[in-house]
């Protein structure tokens, strides 16, 4: 027996094309790097640590499997994302250990809804209610990437569905990207989702530099005077949640599962039912995020990723996020001038949704310029409005293109 059959992880490398074999090695190294950067805090650890592990393991754990014709094929026993036949799916679910989670939670968007319930449970919508116009205006500007990337993507040869799906990366909301690509571009579902989540983690590392580049230090460190001291009671927040959810579901039924998940999570937080709050915050959010990271890593198999369109998606994804960041900061400047220079422009970056990462980025960037400045609650308001505007744009794209 040859060594290649004894250690199929290595043996398969000699059976595959050199390009795939080299890509497998690169992706293994990239997986290890992601775990390191996640641990260091440069990238979002909650996603990056399981994702890096998954990426390294899937590209190492390739083996020879029997195929239907009695021959051999090269594959893994993790999952097969490209299966659609019901019979084959049932068979493979008994072999590939992550297939049940992928089929029953990932590819139908359930995992995105669970993440959204958890995000709802950690978000405070009080500031959205105090400053609805300001927060919405910033969030609308921060959707610049979701809008401007669409014509660029179609000019680069993508069909409208795929162009919309990659443009939604600009909204910096993973669940929205998952949902749009499921609805409009199923064939690009795997690469678009991977690109989106990879870049969303980059937001955490890259946006502070964008703030430094586009906002002078004195504006970043500006202390804001609170003009609205109105107290919003939990009961009022619950009423807002149920009315906003109903209106948005009425307007965009295609995004109704996401609206319901977010506002339900938020209403539960405000209701004070501790056992439910714990369930959403500690179980749903972390379990869903963990499996999301792991599945994303496992989907980064060299043979799945090595398609020519992936390069276009990589370029468009980062462009969408960059444009949204710039748009958010422009929105911040507009509100700054509208409020007679009594506004911290850095809050603009928080309009790029990605709750609560961008709000934390805004606070961090402002604090680096002035230790006394606290803008986190304003930033959370803009960030939550970012979720709402992302959902609106997702709903519009899906409704108008489906």
């Amino acid at each position, binding site marked *: 027996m040859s060594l290649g059959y004894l250690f199929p992880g290595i043996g398969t490398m000699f059976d595959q094309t050199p390009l795939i074999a080299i890509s497998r090695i690169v992706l293994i190294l990239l997986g290890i790097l992601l775990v390191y950067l996640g641990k260091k805090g440069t990238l979002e650890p909650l996603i990056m640590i399981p994702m890096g592990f998954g990426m390294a393991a899937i590209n190492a754990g390739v083996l020879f499997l029997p195929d239907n014709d009695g021959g051999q094929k090269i594959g893994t026993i993790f999952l097969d994302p490209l299966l659609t036949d019901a019979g084959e799916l049932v068979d493979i679910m008994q072999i590939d250990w992550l297939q049940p989670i992928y089929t029953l939670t990932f590819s139908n968007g359930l995992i995105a809804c669970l993440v959204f319930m958890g995000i709802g449970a950690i978000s405070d919508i009080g500031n*959205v*209610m105090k400053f*609805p*116009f300001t*927060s*919405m205006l910033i*969030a*609308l500007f921060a*959707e610049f990437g979701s*809008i*401007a990337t*669409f*014509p660029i993507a*179609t*000019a680069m040869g993508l069909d*409208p569905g795929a*162009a919309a799906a990659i*443009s939604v990366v600009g909204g910096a909301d993973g669940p929205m990207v998952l949902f749009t690509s499921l609805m409009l571009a199923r064939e690009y579902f795997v690469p678009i989702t991977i690109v989106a989540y990879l870049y969303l983690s980059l937001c955490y590392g890259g946006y502070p530099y964008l703030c430094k580049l586009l906002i002078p230090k004195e504006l970043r460190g500006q202390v804001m005077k609170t003009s609205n001291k*109105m107290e*919003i*009671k939990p009961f*009022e927040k619950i*009423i*807002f949640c149920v*009315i*906003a959810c109903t*209106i*948005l579901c009425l*307007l965009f039924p295609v995004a109704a599962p996401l609206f319901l998940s977010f506002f339900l999570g938020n209403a539960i937080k405000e209701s004070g039912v501790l056992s439910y709050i714990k369930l959403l915050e500690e179980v749903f959010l972390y379990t869903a995020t963990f499996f999301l990271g792991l599945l994303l890593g496992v989907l980064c198999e060299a043979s799945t990723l090595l398609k020519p369109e992936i390069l276009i998606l990589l370029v468009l994804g980062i462009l969408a996020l960059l444009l949204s960041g710039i748009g958010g900061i422009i929105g911040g400047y507009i509100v700054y001038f509208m409020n007679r220079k009594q506004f911290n422009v850095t809050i603009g970056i928080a309009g790029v949704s990605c709750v609560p990462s961008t709000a934390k980025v805004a606070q961090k960037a402002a604090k680096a310029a002035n230790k006394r400045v606290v803008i986190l609650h304003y930033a959370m308001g803009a960030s939550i*409005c970012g979720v*709402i*505007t992302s959902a*609106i*744009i997702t709903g*519009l*794209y899906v409704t*108008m293109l489906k």
Partner: protein
Amino acid sequence: MGDSIIFALEVWFLAFVVATLMAVVIKVMLIVIKKMSKDEQQQPPAKEGGDAS
């Protein structure tokens, strides 16, 4: 390219309308709720019936 730019602008305009509508709904709703709770506070307490003396 021209068509897709117009389409994208259309999406942004509709998003702008819906987001503004949401902001108006939030503002109006907040005013109504605040007014209702204020009225409730200002109402005199209901008279207790039956004075034993």
